[in-house]
């Protein structure tokens, strides 16, 4: 490589580091650890943090419960209009979150399409904790379905065929072969959708509002704190950063008992 190329690459790398790492480092150096610990005792912070953990865990559970069958179906079936359906499932990825919030209001709000039906059943979504979970699940779903579908589709048919010849009915083949082999993708999808749910702001504030202890999750608390006290906002942000990092590390580095690479030494020659 010539000198100009080397310099160009170095400049681009430096710019990337500034863009990605500098803000995170700045967050960490701005708050002394003592001040951070003090914030832990603030009931408003504790409430927001607890709410964030509960709602993101709940929405991730919803995402897995609804997304796994969908991912399996998309990975194993072909039907007319499948591409279109996949695009629709991916829509929340590109939809501005506030638009998602408005759409949820239009569907489940008091005057929404399904709002009165839900109300008759005693279910109230807007401006409730349940609404926060719905908003998070709505925006996080495509992350899980996308990664999981890809992982399930990659499981080679020969493993499924062989399992079937070993007295194993289809449901057990899914649980004992397909799911374990797709587990890395499944965990990656879970981590991404959980992270998306934890960071959710726009759809939540639009659909569920900003009520401390009920719908005010950490990202909302950060935004509110920012109006009056930059240091408080930074402290909350650091907590959120550390929390995200911890969960990501657990999910991505956990010993899964899986081989790093699936051997495909002997391909059939037919």
């Amino acid at each position: 490589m010539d000198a100009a190329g080397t310099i160009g690459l170095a400049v681009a790398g430096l710019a990337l580091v500034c863009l990605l790492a500098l803000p995170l480092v700045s967050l960490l150096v701005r708050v002394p650890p003592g001040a951070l610990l003090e914030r832990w005792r603030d009931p408003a912070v504790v409430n927001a943090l607890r709410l964030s953990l509960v709602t993101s865990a709940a929405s991730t559970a919803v995402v897995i419960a609804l997304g796994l069958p969908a991912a399996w179906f998309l990975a194993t079936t072909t039907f007319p209009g499948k591409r279109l359906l996949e695009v629709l499932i991916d829509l929340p990825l590109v939809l501005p979150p506030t638009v998602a919030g408005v759409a949820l209001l239009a569907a489940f709000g008091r005057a929404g399409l399904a709002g009165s039906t839900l109300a008759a059943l005693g279910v109230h979504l807007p401006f409730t904790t349940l609404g926060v979970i719905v908003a998070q699940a709505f925006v996080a779903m495509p992350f899980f379905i996308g990664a999981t579908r890809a992982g399930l589709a990659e499981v080679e048919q020969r493993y499924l065929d062989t399992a079937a010849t070993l007295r194993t009915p289809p449901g057990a083949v899914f649980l004992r072969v397909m799911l374990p082999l797709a587990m890395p993708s499944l965990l990656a999808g879970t981590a991404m959708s959980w992270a998306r749910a934890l960071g959710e702001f726009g759809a939540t504030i639009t659909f569920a509002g900003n009520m401390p202890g009920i719908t005010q999750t950490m990202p909302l608390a950060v935004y509110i704190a920012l109006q009056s006290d930059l240091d408080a906002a930074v402290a909350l942000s650091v907590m959120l950063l550390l929390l995200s990092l911890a969960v990501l590390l657990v999910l991505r580095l956990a010993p899964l008992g899986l081989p790093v690479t699936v051997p495909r030494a002997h391909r059939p020659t037919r």
Partner: protein
Amino acid sequence: MLTARLAERRGGFNLDVTLEAGRGTTVLVGESGAGKTSILRLIAGLDRPDRGRIAVDDAVYVDTDAGVWRPAWARDIGYVPQDYALFPHLSVRDNVGFGLRSMGLARRVIGSRVTDAIGLLGIAELADRRPGTLSGGQQQRVALARAIVLDPRVLLLDEPMSALDLQTRRTVRAELRALLGRLPCVTIYVTHSPIEALLLGDQVVVLERGRVAQAGSRDDLLRRPRSRFVAELIGTNLFVGRVGRTLAGVTALHTADGDLVIADGPTAPSGDPADIFATVHPNEITLHRERPEGSAQNLFAGPILEVVPETPAGERVRVVLGTTPVLVAEVTRAGVTALGLREGMMVFATFKATGVRLYS
């Protein structure tokens, strides 16, 4: 006893076979695309035939006329796929115990049966290893153990040697032969290798483009090939024709490619419409550069297509001739040198009437 009558049309490929296999090893042999793997997948229940019936003893697995279909997991079979397909996320022990667990057996029973199976195949010391860390030969044993631990009534082996290197193949062949001889089940062994077919098959079924070209015992196949494909497989020359009249002590066999002079008393009476088969062993054929003198011999002319030294030492050489029909001659290396044989050269091939072996 396995009986299978199968018809399937997929793309340009037509499969239409009837098989019967009893206890012991039945080898399905044929070239790529002959339909070997398709048949195994149909018996295993991984594919459905367009039409057909598969039964093992009194259990009917498929009968398209009667609307019977038993899925793969409900069939009493063991299947070793070509690439073994060991589950990469499970240890050797859990791979072998996979099917037993699906049958809902007690943990203790599974443990002891798995231990027996991996002991039988000499892989007990690999029990806790992952498939990705095993050699090809070891993977093959695990796949075999995983199938036979189920005590299946039918064991299906799809090209079990193809993933092994040549050196491993030789030792594994002998071991596999001993193992298969001890199993009480019907074994269907698929291969494209004539050597494996003749070494392992109690019965051999030769497949050609989705059809059974010949089925019979190993000896029957060696002594009485009934199609050009089988003859080529075992390395001899085959003619098919009808016996003509005997004139002045000379009998003719009328074939599609002209008449042969034969000496043997024909097994079928003259004029019998049934086909008579004739083989000429390659070492009965003599090659000449010039048209030979004399007339009471069978004479063919054509270019040399291939000159192939035979293993092990190349002392004998196979010469493939572009005659009609194509003939294979076996000559010594000295003979090749003396005649100056090389590809493309025009030669004359002769064999005596007594060199023709006839059967109906």
